[in-house]
């Protein structure tokens, strides 16, 4: 048994898509099962936290953590897994950069509770119950995980060995990463695996020309030419500022890239870079006109930082 790989999979603040993406490797998962013991995987196999706690430090070979860190439970398990595992893999956009849950950093915990528990039209009005870390019921106290003020990427909570981007990661890339571990062909610590260094455009089949933009369109506003770059046609596409590795799925099917694979290698802040590039090719020298053209990019921030607010330089909103 000991010669088998010891693996744990866990989800933090996530949609579950990452877990599904592991299953999307189809039969391959059986080969994995053949060479590895899956010690913890809440979504697929039975296993309790206490089992995990019971393990020796470093007993696991690989911990695959998907999802962001939103509350004390996420953090607790992350730390636990880190302690018990030799390798820590941040799996998917959320673990890597904060992901969609990370968008919550643009608002406040209070606002979120308000929307979810007080002002939500689908809940019973007026009782105003908001989850409390601790609450007493007939003399006993129950505690809930603490809901943090903001979302964190995994690496700001624990030391991460590898990052596997994607929302969700592409099955082939997952296979690649797992095989690397199985074969023990490990890249240097801290590297992004299952993706390339360069940006998406290199693998995008659409033809590119010199870019000048006079007007921006939402994807539904125009019928885009299937063979030329979407950005040139005024449709905001994050591909230029996004690491390749997904297989260009979205642009190939006519949908602009949303940047789930994160910034290209060496880029510090994906959103800022995208803003810099997009604005630079606006075709005007007149301040008013420029404002007008850029007004065609409503809620730009949620696009530019869709998967990476907690991983960005500013990390969160500072609105009081």
């Amino acid at each position, binding site marked *: 048994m000991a010669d088998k790989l010891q693996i744990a999979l866990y989800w933090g603040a996530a949609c579950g898509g990452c877990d599904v993406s592991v299953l999307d490797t189809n039969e391959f998962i059986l080969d994995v099962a053949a060479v590895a013991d899956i010690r913890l995987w809440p979504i697929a196999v039975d296993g309790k936290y206490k089992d995990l706690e019971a393990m020796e430090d470093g007993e696991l070979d690989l911990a695959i953590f998907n999802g962001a860190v939103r509350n004390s439970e996420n953090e607790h398990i992350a730390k636990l897994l880190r302690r018990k595992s030799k390798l820590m893999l941040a799996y998917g956009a959320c673990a890597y950069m904060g992901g969609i849950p990370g968008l919550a950093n643009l608002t406040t915990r209070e606002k979120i509770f308000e929307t979810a528990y007080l002002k939500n039209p689908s809940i019973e009005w007026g009782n105003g119950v908001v989850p409390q870390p601790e609450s007493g019921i007939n003399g006993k106290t129950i505690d809930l995980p603490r809901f943090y003020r903001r979302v964190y990427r995994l690496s700001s909570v624990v030391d991460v060995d590898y990052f596997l981007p994607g929302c969700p990661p592409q099955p082939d890339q997952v296979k690649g990463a797992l095989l690397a571990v199985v074969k023990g062909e490990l890249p240097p610590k801290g590297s992004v695996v299952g993706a390339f260094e*360069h940006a998406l*455009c290199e693998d995008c089949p659409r033809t590119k020309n*010199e*870019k000048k933009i006079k007007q921006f369109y939402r994807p539904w506003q125009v019928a885009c030419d299937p063979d030329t770059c979407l*950005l040139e046609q005024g449709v905001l596409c994050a591909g230029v500022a996004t690491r390749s590795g997904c297989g260009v799925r979205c642009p190939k099917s006519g949908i602009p890239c949303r940047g789930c694979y994160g910034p*290209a290698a060496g*880029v510090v802040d994906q959103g800022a870079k995208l803003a810099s*590039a997009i604005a*630079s090719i606006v075709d005007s020298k007149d301040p008013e006109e420029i404002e007008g053209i850029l007004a065609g990019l409503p809620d730009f921030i949620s696009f530019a930082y869709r998967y990476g607010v907690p991983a960005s330089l500013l990390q969160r909103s500072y609105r009081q």
Partner: protein
Amino acid sequence: MEEHKIGVYVCMCGTNIAKMVDCDDVVRTASEQPGVVCAKTYKYMCSNPGQEMIVADIKEQGLDRVVVAACSPRMHEPTFRKALQTAGINPYFLEMANIREQCSWVHDDRQVATEKARALTLGATRRVANHQPLERMSVEMCPDVLVIGGGVCGLTAALELADGGNRVHLVERASTLGGNVARVDLTAPYLDSARDLMTALVTRVEEHKKVDVLTRSQVSSLEGFVGNFVATVETIWGDSASVSQFKVGNVIVATGYKEFDASRVTHYGYGKLPNVITSFEFEKMLRAGRVQTKEGKLPQYVAIIHCVGSRSKEFHTYCSRVCCMTALKYAQEVKSAVPSCYVSDVYIDMHAFGKGHEDFYRRGSEAKTLFLMYGKNDHPVIRKAGPGDDCEMLIEVNEKLSGEVIEIPADLVILMVGMEAREDSEAVARLVNISRDKDGWFIESHPKLDPVATTTDGIYIAGACAAPKDIPDSVAQARAAAGRILARTIRGVIDIDAVFAEVTEDKCSGCRVCNELCPYSAITYDADKKKSSVISALCKACGACVAGCPSGAIAARHFTDAQIFAQIEGVLA
């Protein structure tokens, strides 16, 4: 990041810095920085002893990075770079902190000034640790020149260059040289024959050993960069075409203009009324020595209408510059051909700015030319005259000087058609990588201070391809462009600054965002590799593409993200 040995030198600049900044304190904080192995103050760092001190330290202590906190780098950066060079390390291992112009001279509180000086020095120290060795290089400059366009401008430029000893390839689309001037009879204001001017010029060019003339030809491609262009020219022989290719160092674009198409203006009835003709058609008449109506009668009334296609909202808003004097010339030529004829000159304004032009205008009115003025936003209308009238046509004008609505008798109407950019100007612009203004004229690198150069190094524009011009101005520009090129080719090489942008090929995704950003067209896109790259010889290091590259694939030498980040951290530390 590998460890460095950094030396920090804080200049007192006599008392200029020292009196407002506690230099020793700056040295103290600097010396606490990682990598700083020596930190000193000195009275005048730029003085010989000052420099010698730095040189000595570099040699003895093996410093590999140097920070000088002193005056503005715009002042002494070259000085200290030289010092580093003499000490035998790369001159770009230097960074200056500007603690005089931007600190001691502008603040009056010694404590805060010192604090700021500390911050600036720290910024420089952090930055310099990220500096990389850079080498200036120089490429050889091919003395041969490509001149596009065989009009008066191209011919003049070609001769100027050829007389200077440079080989010139003169490419002309048409089958003969001479361009538009060759279509003109006399020239204003001195009324000497354009034909004589041109024949002299053309024969000299054709006989010149250093000029090879390619008529019926056009440039199909221009590759490379300043000093090292490769031009491909196609020549049509009847139905067969031959392709020639040659290397040139510089290019003069002298493609000239084309006259405005009068039939675009409806109210003059050009094309419908047989005796409404354009200025160039009239030139033809004059050259044939026969001023008469289509019916072969001598005209009793001739009317000349100015600004056809110029200075109007619907066509071109600019002034075509030569029409006024040409019109006056016609008035006089008509009078001398048909003395009994009455000439009306219908204009918006009379632009007689040039040498001898005002006198020419005066002569025109002395010859009893009837000058009539119409409004800029309104235009004369020509109609056929009735049987009772003693003339062919009647021109109705709202005459501004009298405030009357009048009609002018005319047997022959000459439309002064303006100049406009040739329809192939866009193709030419793309070919040689220069830009055009809203009217299609080529844009100069500076309208006043650099009128014949363009933003693409090695490409010059001269004559009426940049804006309407008369013969003297075109000739002047031709010689100016030729002069610029002679001055550059005489050295044989061109230096390229070590500071420019570089594309890291395997990081470039070929998105082509950067392509449009370069004002010098220094970025080329390789369609096969699907990668963009920077021609360092053309790059002027502004960094637009660097900031614009969404995948961080372009690096600005000496202004890398790492260096600037380090400096930010430094000044805020």
